[in-house]
């Protein structure tokens, strides 16, 4: 048995930032476990720029952003094991992992930080009729083939879903000489960031078909084409609108799912909306001493916010180790009309320093409506938003003073309001 103060599962942006924050805040007995043979996680294949504007005040590519953290991890000699797969976590914070050199290792942690990230929704989750030909990839897999392995997945591409990775790959494949014919999105709005619509699709005249989906995949050995159809308001294909589009490759960019198999094994309660753990404002899951951050908690738009969240998780883990968490009372944070979810889902006012950040997503597109925050029945925050879309994460900041002003508050609720 190995004993560690903090065990971090995953060495992507969340895991690395958590490790660094833990070290800088005085806990150096750390172990990072990573299943790949390199640090940095998915950032390594995100070769595009736009990372780091918040954290480093400059625009970096994914590999550059990761290297800033990797260099510090190496410099500080923070222990990590690569090619190491965690297979079990217990509610007593025991971690079982395997790798080729050590065999099975058991680690008893004082605190665990979950930083496993997320995975892509696969074809199987979509129920598109047709055979199972080759040439169908999730957008991230195609990204790995192109950027890490140097393979081109195909020449004539159709993309289903307008998630950010799909948009990024539309541009990437165009630059590599492929013909990206269309991007279909079943919703009436894009699920990706506006900037990616502009710089990945508009710049290259790639058409985005909103309220369109794929109703059939053609081809037996290799994909030969797809049937594209318009959908109605209840997302059902409208008969008569079908159109055949030939292609040799179909990319799916239809959503990301936090990877919480291990969390579930430990007994962590998962929020069915985010598919990530329920956490308090200490980013602590329903099991004391197990914390979560980054895309395993909820899918982020920005790596900068992942790093920030991970740094906070590490600070809270240190408080847990030192036994200075207060746990006096928990206020529930409730997502009401128009709000899909909030992180955190509960707040301990004693753990609020100067202010409390609440991150959330809305459930539909709203124009010129208000984000309101209620402390029980009292509205404390009411802000006009020109546009709110589910694709862009929003936040509100609650000053510490409000918690002092409402010492008996039981519920804090967020809502999208007309006026």
């Amino acid at each position, binding site marked *: 048995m190995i004993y560690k103060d903090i065990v971090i599962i995953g060495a992507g942006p969340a895991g690395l930032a958590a490790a660094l924050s833990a070290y800088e805040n005085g806990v150096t007995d750390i172990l990072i476990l990573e299943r790949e043979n390199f640090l940095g996680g998915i950032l390594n294949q995100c070769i595009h720029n736009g990372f780091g504007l918040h954290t480093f005040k400059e625009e970096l590519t994914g590999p550059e952003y990761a290297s800033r953290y990797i260099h510090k991890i190496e410099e500080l000699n923070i222990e990590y094991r690569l090619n190491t797969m965690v297979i079990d976590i217990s509610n007593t914070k025991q971690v079982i992992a395997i790798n080729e050199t050590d065999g099975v290792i058991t680690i008893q942690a004082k605190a665990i930080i979950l930083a496993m990230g997320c995975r892509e929704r696969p074809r199987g989750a979509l129920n598109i009729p047709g055979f199972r030909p080759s040439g169908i990839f999730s957008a991230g897999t195609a990204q790995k083939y192109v950027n890490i392995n140097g393979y081109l997945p195909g020449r004539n591409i159709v993309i289903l879903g307008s998630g950010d990775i799909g948009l990024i790959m539309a541009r990437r494949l165009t630059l*590599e000489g492929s013909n990206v014919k269309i991007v279909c999105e079943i919703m009436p709005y894009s699920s990706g960031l506006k900037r990616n619509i502009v710089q990945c699709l508009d710049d290259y005249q790639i058409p985005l078909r909103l309220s369109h989906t794929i109703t059939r995949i053609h081809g037996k050995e290799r994909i030969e084409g797809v049937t594209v159809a318009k959908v109605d308001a209840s997302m059902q294909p409208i008969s008569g609108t079908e159109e055949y589009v030939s292609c040799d490759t179909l990319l799916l960019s239809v959503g990301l799912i936090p990877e919480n198999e291990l969390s579930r094994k430990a007994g962590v309660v998962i929020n069915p909306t985010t598919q990530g753990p329920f956490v308090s404002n200490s980013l602590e899951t329903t099991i004391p001493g197990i914390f979560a951050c980054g895309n395993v908690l909820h899918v982020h738009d920005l790596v900068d916010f992942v790093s920030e969240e991970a740094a906070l998780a590490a600070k809270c883990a240190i408080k847990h180790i030192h036994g200075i968490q207060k746990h006096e009372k928990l206020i529930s944070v409730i997502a009401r009309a128009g709000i899909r979810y909030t992180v955190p889902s509960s707040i301990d006012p004693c753990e609020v320093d100067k202010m409390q950040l609440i991150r959330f997503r809305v459930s539909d597109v709203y124009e010129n409506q208000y984000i309101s925050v209620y402390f029980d029945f009292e509205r404390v925050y009411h802000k006009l938003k020109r546009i709110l879309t589910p694709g862009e994460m929003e936040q509100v900041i609650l000053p510490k003073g409000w918690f002092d002003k409402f010492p008996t508050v039981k519920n804090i609720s967020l809502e999208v309001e007309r006026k």
Partner: protein
Amino acid sequence: MTEVGKRQVTCINCPLGCTLEVEIHNDESIIVTGFQCSRGEDYAKKEVLNPTRTITTTVPVLNGDVQMVSVKTSSDIPKKSIKACMLALKGIVVEAPINIGDIIIKNVCNTEVDIVATKEVKKK
């Protein structure tokens, strides 16, 4: 010469993606509204006068611990030079070791911008 009138552009500098209103006047003055930081104002002016983009791609590596090294233009290049820039990179192969910032092509397509590595690659 840019057309006089109003245009809407979406700022691509950060994921906020601010919608910016650009007014181009007869006297060639440009007024930008809707930005949340100075980067937005600069972007909108550039976008109507001379739109530019940073290009990122990959180049094969010989004798490295990975097959490909990611690269970028060291600053943004005119949109009209993107294709030429990609063609200039065709067939380029580099030898490990490579450090972040190493120049892969100097002054690519006479843009006065270099192609630089964005990833460290160790020798195999």
